Structures are given as structure tokens and as C-alpha cells.
């Protein structure tokens, strides 16, 4: 450890420390403080202890948003992981046009979710929507419309959420599938294992590390859902699709109740931490080394 290296190191770090310190670390600490105040557009910050947090526990709107967030995240994550694995298994085979299919599945991930949600809003429109029309041809009726029907609105934003990020998880699974040693599959073939047994006894256990990573990344992403909900339903109908981040936006930037919004954002942090810890603990028991 030399002094010249120490000096150089801090010079290299200085710009990032300045930016992250001012615009990330300070706001994180400040949000924690504000969450214990009644700060709003109308009045300056005044310490009110844990009142915001006890309000969240009894506030039907906050409970609804937490419930919606957990429902959205659970369904979207489980469906995404399962579909990503199935599609990755397909795209791992050799067949014509495979690279086109790989790009097509991945492209939703790189384009703007809010912009493509505009397209989704037209496709799901009750009167002129192409998907509404195609659905009615095969007997799927949307009633007042996919985004207006209180029961179907959540399904719709979940479908769009799955569609957006699936390609990313497919690529992660493809990478893991390609890293499975071939001799393990060949040995299973020699032992007379059919495709189904090979999948459950060789492929699936060897993918468990990647499944953990995909599940964690998907959960973290899905707990923070906002873009397509903002464009498609604005949290409606009747707050049925209002997730925590949508509520933080509404409370913080439309109602300008900064203290309450800050407390809600720490509830988000808490949920993320609990979910991640549970997942890591669950998968750690099952992790396989090879």
C-alpha cells in the first residue's frame, strides 16, 4: 500500500463519489428522514415519528397497492421464469430461422416499455383493438374492454410485463444451457434416459443456479412495475392495478405528500429485501455444483 496509489485511487474515485454521494446516497438518507415527517407542498417537514408507517398499515389504498404489487410480482415472475425456460429450450435446438426467433424474442426488452404500451393500448382497445377482435373470434370476450374490466386489467398489465422482459431471461437461460457439459447429456442418453427424464434429472438441476438468478432479477424488476401501468391503466380501474411505485408517483408527485410517499418508498425497499432474502435462502438449499 503506497501513498501515491492511495492518492491516485481517490482521484479516480472522486467524480463518482461526488455524483453518487450527492444524488444517490444523500437522497436515500433524506428519504428515510422524510418518511418520519409530514412534509408536503402545504407544510415544511415536521417530525411525526412512525405515524406515516402506522398510517400505511391502516390505509386501504396503501394495503391495496401492496397487495397488487405482490400479486403482480408473484404471477409475473413465476410465469416469466417458466416461459423463459420453455422458450430457451426451444431456441437451444437447431432449426432454420433460429437467430431471427432469438432476436424477435429479445427486441421487446430493448425498446421503450411506455412507447410500446401505447401500441398495446390500441391492440386491447374495446372498439378498434386488433387483439380484442381476434379474441372475440376465438371466443375470448373482454366485456367492457381488457383495460376497463376490473378483473382483466391486472391480467393485461401482467401479460405486457411478461412480454417486455421475457427475452432477457431467455438469453440468460440460453447461456446456462450452453454451459452444461455435453458429456452429462450423452451419459444420460447411454443410460437410456428419454428426453423428459433427461430434462428433470440432468438439465433442470444443473440450471438451478441460473433459475435463482433469473427469479431474483425478475422479482426485483416486477416489484418495481410502473411504465406499462402508467400508460395502460394509470392504476385503474378503481385502483385495481395500482402498484406501490404507481402509488408513490400519485401520492408524491400528484398529491405532493412527500413524507407519506417517502414512507411508501421504504415499504418498497422492505418488500424487495424480504423477497430477495427468501429467494436466496430457498435456492441456496437446492444449489448444485458441477
Amino acid at each position, binding site marked *: *500500500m*503506497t501513498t501515491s*496509489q*492511495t492518492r*491516485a485511487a481517490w482521484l479516480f*474515485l472522486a*467524480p*463518482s*463519489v461526488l*455524483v*453518487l454521494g*450527492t*444524488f*444517490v446516497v444523500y*437522497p*436515500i438518507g433524506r428519504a428515510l428522514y*422524510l418518511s418520519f415527517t409530514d412534509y408536503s407542498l402545504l407544510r415544511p417537514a415536521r417530525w411525526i415519528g412512525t405515524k406515516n408507517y402506522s398510517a400505511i398499515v391502516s390505509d386501504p389504498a396503501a394495503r391495496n397497492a401492496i397487495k397488487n404489487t405482490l400479486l403482480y410480482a408473484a404471477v409475473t415472475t413465476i410465469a416469466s421464469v417458466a416461459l423463459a425456460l420453455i*422458450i430457451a429450450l426451444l431456441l437451444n*435446438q*437447431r*432449426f432454420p*430461422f433460429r437467430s431471427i*426467433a432469438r*432476436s*424477435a*424474442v429479445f*427486441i*421487446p426488452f*430493448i*425498446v*421503450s*416499455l*411506455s*412507447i410500446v404500451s*401505447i*401500441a*398495446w393500448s*390500441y*391492440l386491447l382497445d374495446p372498439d378498434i383493438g*386488433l387483439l380484442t377482435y381476434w379474441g372475440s373470434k376465438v371466443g375470448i370476450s373482454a366485456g367492457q374492454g381488457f383495460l376497463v374490466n376490473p378483473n382483466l386489467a391486472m391480467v393485461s398489465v401482467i401479460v405486457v410485463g411478461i*412480454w417486455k422482459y421475457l427475452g*432477457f431471461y431467455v*438469453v*440468460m437461460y*440460453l*447461456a446456462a444451457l450452453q454451459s452444461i457439459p455435453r458429456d452429462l*447429456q*450423452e451419459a444420460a442418453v447411454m443410460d437410456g434416459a428419454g*428426453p423428459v427424464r433427461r430434462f428433470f434429472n440432468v438439465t433442470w438441476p444443473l440450471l438451478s443456479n*441460473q433459475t435463482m*438468478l433469473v427469479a431474483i432479477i425478475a422479482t426485483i424488476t416486477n416489484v418495481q412495475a*410502473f*411504465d406499462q401501468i*402508467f*400508460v395502460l391503466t394509470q392504476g385503474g380501474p378503481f385502483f385495481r392495478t395500482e402498484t406501490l*411505485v404507481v402509488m408513490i408517483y400519485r401520492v408524491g*408527485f400528484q398529491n405532493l405528500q412527500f413524507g407519506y410517499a*417517502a414512507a411508501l*418508498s421504504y415499504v418498497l425497499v422492505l418488500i*424487495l429485501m424480504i423477497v430477495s432474502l427468501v429467494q436466496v435462502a430457498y435456492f441456496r438449499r437446492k444449489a448444485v455444483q458441477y
Partner: protein
Amino acid sequence: MVAYDSARFTAAPSKGRVLLRRFSVRQTVFALVALSLSFAFMLPIIWMLFASFRTIPDLTSYPPTLLPHSWTFGNYTEVFRELPFLHLYQNTLLYAGTVTISSLVLDSMAAYALARLRFRGSSVVFFVIIILLMLPFQVTLVPLYILMHNLGLVNTLPGLIIPRLSNAFGIFFMRQFFLGLPHDLEDAARIDGASEWRIFRQVIAPLAKPALLALGLFYFQGNWNDLIWPLIMTSNARDGTLPAGLSLFNGQHNINYGVVMAGSVLTLIPVILLFLVVQKSFVQGIATTGTK
């Protein structure tokens, strides 16, 4: 499930021919399934592309169709007149471009210090970076907005850009990459008396090109596409970026939908093109995320 083995374990030529035929039937089925899947995934984008060439009566006619009944290019000229499209485009390009370039430079500088230099406090800095990675961006929204408001930077481009000049994820990502590089070259340069800055610029940075390319595309698309940050930092649809602006314009009742579609297509194109250019290194970047 595993396709290669059916081709591989064919011993007798006669049996091989049978298997070869089965193999191609199987391939055809896979290709058909994969192409239907591709169509389903691309449908919203394909629909949007066609919609941008339609007139309003065509777009709202019943029954709805995927293909236009008649084609018009009018939306692409009107978008520049009916919306402040050029202004939004310029904002988005400056915002995403500046954030990308600045983050790549500042992140890799910080990562170089953390990965290649020995100094007091190194582990504390790294620990803070890990904590920041675990916290969602939304937790900073309220205080960040108030801070930018007090600095007079709300509704300005610098206000959008400055908080994102550096990024904890990029520091972590580049640190992991730098840790994997051999030490010989930089040790030789150090013995020759080269400064740390020179080693960083001339030895380490050139080796990091693939990682920087992947991270760069990640930043560019992330900020180009971002909705919530531009949305809260701009008080009207005209001063923000394309995703925020177009989402808000689309919500207005007196808007020409064909024009919004044209604007949307023009917003998607740069990111898709960029992706197709650097596809390989980007996908490899994702693929290696889990293994490091």
C-alpha cells in the same frame, strides 16, 4: 428435447436416412413454432409500424386489421408539425448520450481504482456500492426531486442528466471485468514509470472495449427508454424526453393517433438499430452476468 443426439447416434446408414427425415420434420416443426412465437412477440411493434402509415379513418375502422387499407406518409411529416417532436428527440438524444458517455468514463475510472489499486477505504467504498445496488431507484425520487427543485434544475436538461453522470451498477460491472485482466502489462508500465492515469487510459481501457460496449448499450437504451425520471422532472409534455412526452400526448383527446404512431416508430428505431449493431457483445454481456 436435445436435438443433436438424434443425429449423432445413428450408426447404420439405412437407419440414418430414416432419422434424417425425422430430423427435418422435427426441425420444420421447431421452425414453425419459433416463427409463430416471433410474430407474437413482434406483433405490437409490427402493428405500430403499419399504424404509422395509416390515416385516422383507416386506423379506427371496424373490423380492425393488421395491414393498412391504404398507405400514407403524412404522419411522418405531420409529427414534426403537430408535436414538438424535434425538440423532444434532441432532448432524448442529449440526455441518453451524455449520461452514457459520462457514466462509461466515470464508472470505469472508479472501477479501476477499486479493482487495480490498493488503498485505505477501498473495501468501504465497495461495500457502499453493493448497498446502492440493492436499493431501488424509486426510494431516491422524492428527495431528489426536492433537491433538483432547490437547485433550480427542474424542467432543465442538466437536471435530468447530472444525477446520472455516474452509476453504481456500472462501477460494479466494470470492477468485475477489470479483476479478470492479467497484471503483467500494467506492472511493466508501472516499472517504466507510467502514471496511473496513463496505465488506465492506454493499457486497461483499451482491453475493456467489449465490456464498455455492452454497458454503453445498456445505459443508452435504459435512459432513452426511461419513463418515471423524465416524467417527474418535467412539468409538461414538451420539455421532457420522447417516452414521457409521447405517453402524455397519447393521453390527450384531441391528438392525431397516426402521428403518435409515427413518433413512436421513430423513437424505437435508433435503439433497435444500435442493438442489431452491437447485438453480439450485448448478449454476451448478459450471458456472463451470472458467472462472474
